[in-house]
């Protein structure tokens, strides 16, 4: 017996060849976060809508909070089934009813983040089309093309190939850095100001709105634990990749958000962002380095938005699939497309929702960037914050109930601090939700949107109780994802 175990296992080493190392996981994680899309799309929109200059500091602060959150998150990921989904943490930490409620919040949040992207693709593509052909169709035509491509690729289960993704990602980061250097070499007349990194410039009215946007920029980072089963070393690869991903994103975004303010000066950034919107950084680049560099950036902005759209489409479709397999959603959603191995029903549902949103926005003539991209992004960001807070609480409760020899820092202190920080941010976001949406402070819509999450939580809880009463065997498997059919393991 001991002889066989000392020999390296042929099975393990054969399977290990297909496994992912730290760099691959980091690539997967950051690419879902789509750097250029955030730097060119989210950041100027955040300046424009919120008028807050402290966005760079917000990225650093939230990076720190995400890292704090990740401590408990990756620790619990080693101990739970279906570690890729937030609701699995709630189900296995707090209870199955809370798990279903969390699942509904997650569905809403991911959906919002994905649908919001249809708002940015138009404004990303328009300048290029104008440049090349002298004319451009309205944003919703471009959005519909992107919608069709995303829907088709989703059905065919084309995840953008890892190599293409890496090339795109590296070029995106390179372009962002080149733009940053260009900005830094051409400061405003008043000189280089570090006002953006001053905490005082973040904590002004509108801070909550800025924070919610910035959070959406980090969306995708939580997917690192999905790769736990597929990584070389479950205990090392995933935590390392998660922290690295958070650090890279936080620092890159903070520097880039700050660099945008350098040529205009901190006083001019809000005005410049309002006038030029998503073209801001490309106009800056064109002024500093010529139109060639700027055009490369614009093309990558489009590909970045598309890649992000496909990533979120597939994430959401898989989420729906996992819930279908558990029978929490109708089991129809757990069906697989035999031909392409795609989670077919979830994918179709996503595509249908996308069409409805694009059509509604086109008919009512609403602004795609501020009203679709930014509003949905903020709404999704608020949902994501809620999910992070619930997950942190779940970590504390899970380890209180299942002592496992992990350190107190990982099981209590870090998740506790993360919960506290996240709750404060949620509070600030709610206080400033009118700014985030660009409506009057007494508008009802500012309460309706967060209210949707409350309704989702209540309905999710009620649905879980119904399941418990009518289909206890389904209730028992909540939170197990694809493993629900086997009654789970570990």
């Amino acid at each position: 017996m001991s002889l066989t175990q000392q020999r390296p296992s042929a099975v393990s080493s054969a399977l290990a060849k297909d496994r992912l190392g730290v760099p691959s996981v980091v690539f997967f994680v950051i690419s879902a976060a789509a750097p250029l899309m955030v730097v060119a799309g989210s950041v100027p929109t955040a300046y424009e809508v919120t008028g807050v200059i402290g966005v760079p500091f917000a990225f650093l602060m939230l990076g720190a909070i995400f890292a704090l959150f990740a401590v408990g998150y990756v620790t619990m990921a080693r101990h739970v089934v279906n570690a890729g989904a937030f609701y699995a943490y709630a189900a296995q930490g707090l209870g199955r009813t809370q798990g279903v409620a969390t699942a509904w919040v997650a569905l809403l949040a991911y959906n919002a983040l994905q649908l919001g992207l249809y708002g940015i693709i138009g404004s990303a593509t328009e300048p290029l089309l104008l440049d090349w052909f002298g004319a451009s169709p309205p944003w919703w035509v471009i959005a519909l093309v992107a919608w069709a491509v995303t829907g088709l690729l989703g059905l065919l289960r084309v995840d953008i190939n890892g190599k293409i993704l890496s090339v795109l990602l590296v070029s995106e980061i390179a372009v962002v850095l080149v733009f940053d250097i260009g900005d830094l070499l051409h400061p405003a007349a008043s000189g280089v100001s570090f006002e953006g990194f001053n905490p005082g410039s973040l904590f002004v009215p509108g801070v909550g709105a800025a924070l919610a946007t910035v959070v959406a920029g980090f969306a995708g980072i939580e997917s690192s634990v999905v790769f736990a089963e597929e990584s070389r070393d479950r205990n090392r690869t995933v935590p390392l990749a998660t922290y690295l991903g958070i650090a890279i994103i936080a620092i890159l975004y903070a520097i880039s958000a700050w660099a945008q303010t350098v040529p205009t000066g901190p006083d001019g950034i809000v005005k410049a962002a309002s006038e030029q919107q998503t073209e801001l950084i490309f106009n800056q680049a064109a002024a500093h380095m010529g139109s060639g560099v700027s055009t490369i950036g614009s093309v990558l902005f489009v590909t970045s938005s598309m890649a992000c759209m496909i990533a979120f489409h597939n994430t959401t479709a898989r989420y729906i699939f996992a819930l279908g397999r558990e029978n929490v959603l109708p089991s129809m959603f757990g069906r697989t497309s035999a031909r392409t191995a795609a989670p077919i029903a979830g994918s179709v549902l996503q595509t249908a929702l996308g069409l409805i949103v694009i059509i509604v926005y086109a008919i009512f003539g609403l602004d795609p960037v501020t009203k679709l991209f930014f509003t949905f992004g903020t709404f999704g960001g608020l949902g994501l914050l809620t999910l992070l807070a619930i997950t942190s609480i779940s970590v504390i409760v899970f380890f209180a109930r299942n002592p496992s020899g992990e350190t107190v820092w990982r099981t209590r202190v870090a998740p506790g601090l993360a919960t506290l920080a996240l709750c404060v941010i949620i509070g600030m976001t709610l206080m400033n939700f009118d700014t985030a949406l660009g409506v009057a402070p007494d508008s009802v819509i500012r309460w309706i949107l967060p209210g949707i999450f409350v309704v989702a939580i209540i309905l999710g809880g009620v649905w879980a109780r119904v399941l418990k009463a009518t289909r206890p065997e389904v209730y028992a498997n909540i939170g197990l994802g694809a493993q629900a059919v086997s009654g789970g393991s570990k």
Partner: protein
Amino acid sequence: MADDLFFVIHHNVTGRARLHPRLASLGLAGAVIGELLLAERVTLDLAPGRDRLYVITKNATGDPLTQNVLDHVVAEPHHPIVTWLHFFARTIYADVTARMITKQLLNPPARNLLKQQPATPVDANTAAWPLARLNLAIQRRKPPVIRDCVLYGLVVATGGAARALREHDAAFAAATTALLPVPLQRLIVQTEVVVGEAVISRR
């Protein structure tokens, strides 16, 4: 049985696949392990949540493919069945095709100018027979023999039921699987789990 599953998930004349290769491989891996279970070379050690393959007898199986699988399990008995499914799925598609070519069930794949053509069945009627048996059983709502119950379970587990079978009745499928001995039931369930995970996986 792997041969039968192969015929069910491929067209009986053209040999074109009805299933995504990844799902087909996982299903075929389940079928080969099913052959060993039915031949009583191995059984399942049902630890809660960690079903392991347990070798009953090391007697030769008389077939290189199943013998190879059995040898692997004998050499490293500690892996859970899910690991075996992943491990054998890597190579099983080619292995089963090769075995069926040797048995003269399939023609060797022809190489066209542009792309490799699928291996076509030697006799379209032989190839259609396993699927016909399942369709007949479903039409009559009468569970087939044990072997075909396993086959039916695996076709459903890989998600091929809606595409391959003439009619898909989830309740009847579940009832048929419930007739099987527990180890075979668990094999089907674990195959469904790895198929589900393959769908969720991002690669």
